């Protein structure tokens, strides 16, 4: 296909049909790219069941054209149905760049789409830019668990990148923005499907959802026991925060795997990230480096976490933390 132009993003919706926050983040990234492509346009693929009503919201967040693929077959994500749908949109939008969230589904969709389109993919991309000389995408990502940064250019169009969650801040929705809505018939034949959706199980979250919390309190292997995690939960309850863990702590079974933060866990960017008895290995930092204020308690003054922190206390958490909690109780609610 010749004449490629602009940026296409793939929206994500939750089971109730609401746009996921990654959609706004991708639109913000796409807007920046399109503006540096001398004002080319941003389009969005909205694929799902009953999602057409959300098109205006996608426009308000920065899209110029929304391609709606609305069919009961897209109620649940399966690569086998979403890849042809994304390809159908790509054929109409003909973008230079395709941005997809590096989410559980996006990290499957991105490479699948790349291979189907016979083009390169950058995954878990933390920064996207347009190279002024080539006009093409350059994508930066972490490597070796965050130790190094790698910048990649692409040899064929379209250029596909999955974008790290929370790497971009969504724009405030502008209800006055106008755009075009185009319905696309992806005509996916489900009778030939090799994969099948069986069921979805909601996992109940105690307290506040980690990704939404203003404060995240994370414990590392240095906590030494599951009882110590109870203290973190107490602190979380006091401060309206959520509790997280490093992979080392989860693998030591001090807590569940579901609260693991890092390159193989969840990604958070709270206002305050309280890192307790964790060293700050790059694999962990990949999940929290977007935090606004990291506060570290660790007895090793050389621990990497101090290099990433705004405030720190060097000391054994078993002495530091009870006094910290007690003082917060004395100070009362903020």
């Amino acid at each position, binding site marked *: 296909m010749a004449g490629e132009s602009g940026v296409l993003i793939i929206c994500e919706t939750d089971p109730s049909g609401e746009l996921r926050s990654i959609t706004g983040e991708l639109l913000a990234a796409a807007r920046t790219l399109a503006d540096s492509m001398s004002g080319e346009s941003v389009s969005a693929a909205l694929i799902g069941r009953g999602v057409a009503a959300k098109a205006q919201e996608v426009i308000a967040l920065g899209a110029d054209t929304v391609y709606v693929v609305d069919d009961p077959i897209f109620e649940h994500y399966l690569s086998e149905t979403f890849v042809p749908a994304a390809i159908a949109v790509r054929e109409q939008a003909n973008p230079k760049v395709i941005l997809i969230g590096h989410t559980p589904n996006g990290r499957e969709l991105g490479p699948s789409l790349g291979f189907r389109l016979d083009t390169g993919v950058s995954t878990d991309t933390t920064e996207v830019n347009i190279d002024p000389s080539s006009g093409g995408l350059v994508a930066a990502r972490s490597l070796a*668990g965050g130790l190094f940064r790698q910048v990649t250019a692409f040899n064929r169009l379209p250029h596909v990148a999955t974008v790290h969650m929370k790497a971009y801040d969504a724009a405030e929705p502008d209800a006055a923005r106008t755009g075009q809505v185009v319905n696309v018939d992806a005509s996916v034949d489900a009778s030939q499907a090799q994969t099948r959706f069986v069921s979805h199980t909601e996992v109940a979250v105690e307290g506040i959802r980690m990704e939404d919390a203003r404060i995240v309190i994370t414990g590392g292997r240095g906590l030494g026991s599951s009882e110590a995690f109870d203290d973190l939960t107490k602190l979380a309850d006091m401060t309206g925060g959520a509790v997280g863990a490093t992979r080392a702590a989860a693998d030591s079974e001090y807590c569940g795997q579901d609260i693991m933060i890092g390159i193989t866990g969840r990604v958070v960017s709270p206002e305050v990230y309280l890192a307790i008895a964790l060293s700050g290995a790059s694999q962990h930092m990949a999940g929290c480096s977007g935090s606004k204020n990291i*506060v570290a308690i660790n007895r090793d003054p050389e621990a990497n976490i101090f290099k990433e922190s705004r405030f720190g206390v060097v000391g054994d958490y078993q002495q530091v933390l*009870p006094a910290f909690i007690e003082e917060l109780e004395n100070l009362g609610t*903020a």
Partner: protein
Amino acid sequence: MHIIVTVKQVPDPEAPQSSFTVDRAAKKVVVASSVPSTVSDMDVYATEAALLVKDVVPDTTVSVLSLGDSHVMDVVKRPLAMGADALYLVQDAELAGGDAMAIAHALAAAIRKIGPFDLIMAGRQSADLDQGIVATGVAMLLGVPVMTNAVRVAMNGDAIQIDRIVDDGIDTIEAKLPAVVTVSNELGQPRYATMRGIMAARRVDPTVWSRADLETLESSEALTTPVDLFEPEKSSNVEIIEGENAADAGRLLAQRLRTERLI
């Protein structure tokens, strides 16, 4: 049933960070010779997933396939010591250093040469590059479905069923065989190698191929160009809160965070 597990040998990511440096001109990570090699952690979980299927499906063979240029036998035989049956090595520096597309092509060609398969299992991403691309590519090139990030695998009749973690819970999905499944660490602790497994692994002679042996290898030009590789600068300006003792420092930290309206 025939399961092929793709396994990558990587420098031990637990080695001190100072053992890893960058040759910025060559855009390559340089690993100190003292760093031992290991099986990429997610591939150990993939091996476990394959063995869980083998545990319940009679007459299952698990083959291990690894592409690289300096295989250490004790490392790539670890899946065999856990209970896998056969080992195929593709040894080629140029292939191993290629981009994700080139590696997927090479693995797909090797799998075709190994013969018919029912399942391919791989770790969700490698411990050195963290890309999570290759297994999906292998599925696309072989024309079979792919399901990624499995945290549970089970046979359901003649289909493979998996649980995968999604944003607000767990999706259960399944695929007809043959299929590719990538596995995540939430699967649970992989089994240890047994003494009997280690002895059996020693007796296995790997099948070793080079690029020239992969006659079906499609030529594939690189789809990406490395532009830069560097160590991000960390500007450390941490304010260490000190007190008369650790508890006092904890109190002062609480006060400081309150003053800053952070907590």
